[in-house]
């Protein structure tokens, strides 16, 4: 069976009405991987955000959240950044067993800024999880795609 260019274009079509919530894995040449919804891919194109710029924005964000983790090092043992269902999750793993309200307020400021700048970063959400219940919120299979602070 032969396939012409038109068929390929049709097969690769992303329609916001049909594919808006569908997750796509983006695999660039450097073996990195990102997950985005069809709607986010369309929005990124509409905003003329190049993939490299977006990737750089996330790299800068990773440095920022690691610094934030160090600022709260008395409670935060590790910071993770991992993709899940079209959202990049930034998880601050706390050593203590109780919710840290001061950390939550710092994360609130970060989340608000990220939501305002969604065009720069895509859908990102920062939150905290207790080390003792790590396995309840992160699957072992996700760790391969995650960035992890030491």
């Amino acid at each position, binding site marked *: 069976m032969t396939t012409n260019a038109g068929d390929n274009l049709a097969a690769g079509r992303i329609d916001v009405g049909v594919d808006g919530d569908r997750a796509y894995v983006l695999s660039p040449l450097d073996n990195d991987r990102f997950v985005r919804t069809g709607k986010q891919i369309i929005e990124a194109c509409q905003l003329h955000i190049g993939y490299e710029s977006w990737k750089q924005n996330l790299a800068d964000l990773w440095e920022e959240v690691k610094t934030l983790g160090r600022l709260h090092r008395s409670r935060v043992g590790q910071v993770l950044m991992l993709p899940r269902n079209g959202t990049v999750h930034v998880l601050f793993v706390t050593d203590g*067993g*109780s*919710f840290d*309200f001061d950390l*939550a*307020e710092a*994360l*609130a*400021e970060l*989340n*608000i800024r990220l*939501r*305002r700048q*969604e065009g720069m970063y895509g*859908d990102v959400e920062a*939150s*905290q*999880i*207790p080390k*003792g*219940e790590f396995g*309840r*919120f992160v699957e072992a299979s996700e760790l391969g795609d995650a960035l992890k602070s030491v």
Partner: protein
Amino acid sequence: MAVADLEAHLTQYHHNRRLIALLPASHPDWMVTVAFYCCIHLIDAVLAREGYQPVDHKSRNRAIANSNRLAFIAKLYDPLYQLPRKVRYMAAPLEWVPFDRIGPIVLGRYLYPIEKSAFRLLGRPEIHELIDLPTEI
């Protein structure tokens, strides 16, 4: 402005608020969850007044973050948003949010100031009765 939506959200806010005081001290995880849903309905009432009806958490969060009028609420709402999203799934929720944090922090630092701001934005007199929590376990 969708007046019916606004009133429906306020009715549900009061409905949820009454429940907080009825929950036993042994269930602070559910107190914080109900407090969060009080805030959701208050914020949705404010947004309804502006002609917007969020359909999920993501659209609500985006609307809050991008509204200057809601800037004060935004900083207080996000910790309440973070808290129940995790506590519902925990094996040890009472350690994550102990009862002694409900009155001074969850209500005093977040819910009450959000209520005060939301009623001001709605142009309505605030009915700000402190929630009478049960005595500690």
